């Protein structure tokens, strides 16, 4: 009845609903890549003592697992190096919460030991 009295509200509500749905359907915000790159660069230098190691960031999807040495963390991101014994170009794997992590055996490279974890993206 009320709708019949105010027929001009119907398109307005429809438009508002569409905008709200579109806003909710937005993809999650992309990670702050420059900040992550800076953190990883610092982390690689700190962990291995070799500055300016070239690397690329790789992103995971649910069901992806990887293991390696933690090179950087933020509130919601965990970045690990799956090839601690490789000193040239590295592929750093990025996990965003929620993820499962557990400790695994250390990596040994040239007589040095590095603690490793296994992470599964949920």
């Amino acid at each position, binding site marked *: 009845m009320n709708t019949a009295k105010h027929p001009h509200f119907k398109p307005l509500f429809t438009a508002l609903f569409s905008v709200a749905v579109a806003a909710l359907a937005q993809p999650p915000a992309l990670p702050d890549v420059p900040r992550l790159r800076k953190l990883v660069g610092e982390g690689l230098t700190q962990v291995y003592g070799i500055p300016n190691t070239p690397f690329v960031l*790789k992103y*995971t999807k*649910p*069901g*992806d*697992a*990887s*293991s*390696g040495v933690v090179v950087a963390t933020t509130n919601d991101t965990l970045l690990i190096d*799956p*090839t601690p014994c*490789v000193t040239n170009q590295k*592929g750093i*794997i990025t996990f965003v919460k929620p993820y*499962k992590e*557990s400790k*695994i*055996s250390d990596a040994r490279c040239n007589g040095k030991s590095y603690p*490793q974890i*296994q992470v*599964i993206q949920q």
Partner: protein
Amino acid sequence: MKSKWQNAAIIIGLVGGIISIPKSTIEGWQTIFSRPKLDVERSVPVSIAYDPKNNVLRCSFGMLLFNAGNKAEIIKAFHAQLRVPDDPKQCVLFSDSGTVINEDKNAIGTVFTVRQNDSKSLTCEITVDSSDPIRGLFKLQPKTARELVVELVGEDQSYHPAAFHFEFGEDVLKELFDPEGRGSITFYGSEQ
């Protein structure tokens, strides 16, 4: 004057000879000793999926092959094994019969050719029964390191190996085999 021209001709002849002899020698060598030179690179990480209905495991991965030699390479056989590194007793061999090799999503069989100066991007899927030896290999915690070693066997019995390394922890085991788990896992980074 005449001797100057003669000297110049001698020098040109010598230079030409110096340039052409190594080239012809190399070409001659290559003609006599033509052979393939296959490089195998890992390109897609290992994924393992468990199908509880059929009780089978499907293991997939990708490889990039490049033949830098001067003769085509014919791959005659494909071997794969899942094992614990540095522990030869802990090993499961996969047969060719359960293996499907795809190039551009088309199955090409386990016998194929890589022409000279050509490359092939392959994805491989191995299907095996989820037998006790395989499950046993997964349940060797706290030893978590595993490797999938693939060998392509060439026409002249040359072996072209590629090893994918990954860790098989307790969480992965649950994710794969528990009814609440996802049933599949991709070991991201195993291709590096």
